[in-house]
């Protein structure tokens, strides 16, 4: 990856809350990260860890109310997306930031043909006329490997299989050559053999088109295969972040460590018993004043109850929000508490 390049996306101190009848839910708490051009960032976490909400907050895709982006800065090529008007945001979505949703059946419109849905962004954002858009739409379908593209443009979403539908979603997201592509669990609803096809496709397209990708998933295997960098979220926060090989090799947050252990494998040694993370993820009724993982953490000590840990640097480009220093085998001292 191009080191030292200006990030295409910078997120600083993002806070998103939901107003519910039971009070506020703090879904995203002070999330900061950046994304370099051409980089593939994998985001993992359990449901409710805030990974989707974070990404949807960035480009104003959350319905408000109940959602409210309360604090933070999202710089996309220097433009603060949180201060944009709805019109300005609409101009960013598409050519700036593309989005692939998890379930292609519910995110494609069943009453329009795939061709119509592909032409729409091209005509709105790229100023193409219908004819040019039609040609480009066909190219896009071919790009994502749908055979007989010309004829398939006239088909409706229900006439495609799950894997093909997801390819259509990718084609729509790619239509305006986005600088950043956010893919929210794009293969979770698919079978493994189809998932393998899509992953190959994304690897290929990434080289061809050179965009930055944020890939949200709960499958650590997928991340290991395609990502440059991994970001682990828990309780609405980033608990660990770093280059993918480094984090898998030397996880420095107890949650990442436990997560890596719970995943059984189809290869290598078969563990006689699965290791588990006891307990449940927290419900975020208030802004956290302590470590969100403490209740499920074997390593937890007094300080985890009293303070929410900042992200400590633990390696090159690698940081973890934990007071326990695995390298020293002892709690961290306050002096190290440098924010990353």
């Amino acid at each position, binding site marked *: 990856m191009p080191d030292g390049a200006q990030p295409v996306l910078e997120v600083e101190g993002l806070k998103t809350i939901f107003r519910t009848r039971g009070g506020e839910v703090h879904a995203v708490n002070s999330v900061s990260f950046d994304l370099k051009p051409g980089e593939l960032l994998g985001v993992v976490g359990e449901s409710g860890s805030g990974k989707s909400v974070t990404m949807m907050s960035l480009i104003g895709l959350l319905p408000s109310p109940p959602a409210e982006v309360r604090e933070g800065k999202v710089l996309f090529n220097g433009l603060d997306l949180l201060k944009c008007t709805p019109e300005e945001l609409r101009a960013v979505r598409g050519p700036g930031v593309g989005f692939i949703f998890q379930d292609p059946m519910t995110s494609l419109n069943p009453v329009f043909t795939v061709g119509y849905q592909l032409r729409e962004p091209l005509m709105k954002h790229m100023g193409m006329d219908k004819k040019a858009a039609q040609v480009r739409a066909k190219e896009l379908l071919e790009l994502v490997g749908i055979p007989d593209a010309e004829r398939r443009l006239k088909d409706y979403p229900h006439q495609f299989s799950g894997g093909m539908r997801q390819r259509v979603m990718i084609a729509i997201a790619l239509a305006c050559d986005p600088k950043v592509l956010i893919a929210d669990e794009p293969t979770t609803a698919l079978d493994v053999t189809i998932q393998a096809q899509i992953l190959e496709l994304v690897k290929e397209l990434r080289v061809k088109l050179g965009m930055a990708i944020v890939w949200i998933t709960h499958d650590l295997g997928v991340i290991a295969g395609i990502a440059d960098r991994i970001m682990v979220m828990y309780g609405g926060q980033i608990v660990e972040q770093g280059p993918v090989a480094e984090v898998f090799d030397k996880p420095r947050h107890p949650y990442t460590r436990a997560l890596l252990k719970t995943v059984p494998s189809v290869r290598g040694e*078969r563990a006689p018993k699965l290791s588990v993370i006891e307990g449940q*993820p927290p419900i975020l009724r208030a802004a956290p004043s302590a470590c969100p993982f403490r209740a499920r953490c074997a390593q937890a000590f007094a300080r985890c109850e009293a303070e929410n840990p900042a992200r400590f640097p633990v390696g090159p480009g690698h940081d973890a929000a934990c007071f326990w220093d695995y390298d020293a085998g002892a709690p961290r001292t306050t002096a190290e508490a440098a924010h990353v």
Partner: protein
Amino acid sequence: MFDTAGVKPLIEVKGLKMYFPITAGVFRSHVGDVKAVDDVSFTIFEGETLGLVGESGCGKSTCGRAILRLYEPTAGSVVIDGQDVLGADQGLLRRMRPKMQMVFQDPQASLNPRMTVAAIIGEPLDEHTTLSKAEKLARIYELMDQVGLNRDFANRYPHEFSGGQRQRIGIARALALNPKFIVCDEPIAALDVSIQAQVVNLLEELQDRLGLTYLFISHDLSMVRHIADRVAVMYLGQIIELSPRDAIYAEPLHPYTQALLSAVPEPDPEAEKTRRRIILTGDVPSPANPPKGCNFCTRCPKVMDICRVEEPRLTEIRPGRFVSCHLYDETAGATAAPGATPSNNNTAIQQGE
């Protein structure tokens, strides 16, 4: 691991077919069938877990439901604990129900939102036993303890629980009548990774303690490797490979099994760089119109001429290892046996952990 020697089969499925008719026109005339399960045979031994894997639409869930006669199968026979399930009349079937239970995929959808946990777990007891109120409550508490639910929550409603806890309620309900056999239909698919391990460990503990027999239906090959003793792989309504767990993961024989296992990503970046993936082209054909010859011939990387003409049969090509593929035609020959009952004098099934 599981040793089949000297253990009697609890479930025997032979030639099971489940076709759903396709009708057309005003008179709803019968124009074809969706062959969801097409001639499936296997045996499950007492105390064993058979993993049934395959991609969506391959018929694995339909197979599980047809065995319990939640559908009326088109043809075949299912014998559970010596009793014919498919031939039983409604009265007899009802008396057999306590022995065979099911845990469903989506605990949200399979638990009545207007019933309390105690009522949900107690419903099978109302239906099939004559316990007094106090005895019933005692049994409900016992079941809640068994699956790790706090007794104090007995009067709460399903929506007050998390996904993993809801699945525990579903398991407690399945256990209420002391079943011998439980069909687990994707019991962990709707759960988070960290919670999946909790539920799988619970199922294993319960099996050890209560001597249960499972049919574990899943698309998650790594979890099946963990829980199953033997694994059956389905494709387009048919079992294409059935083998002891260690053997099938170490050396898958059918090209589809090979592709399926190679497609599972490994949570290890180093291994991922070097891993060779078999990428299948195309999609699964429609079960209403399966290809001629072998069902897999349209996507098979090792397809031969014979595959497009003649349908292969599930054959024991090595002790305990059944595969339905023309690649192994020569090695098969002598041992050709319908109905996938492993021979007992085999070496491929290893004992113990």
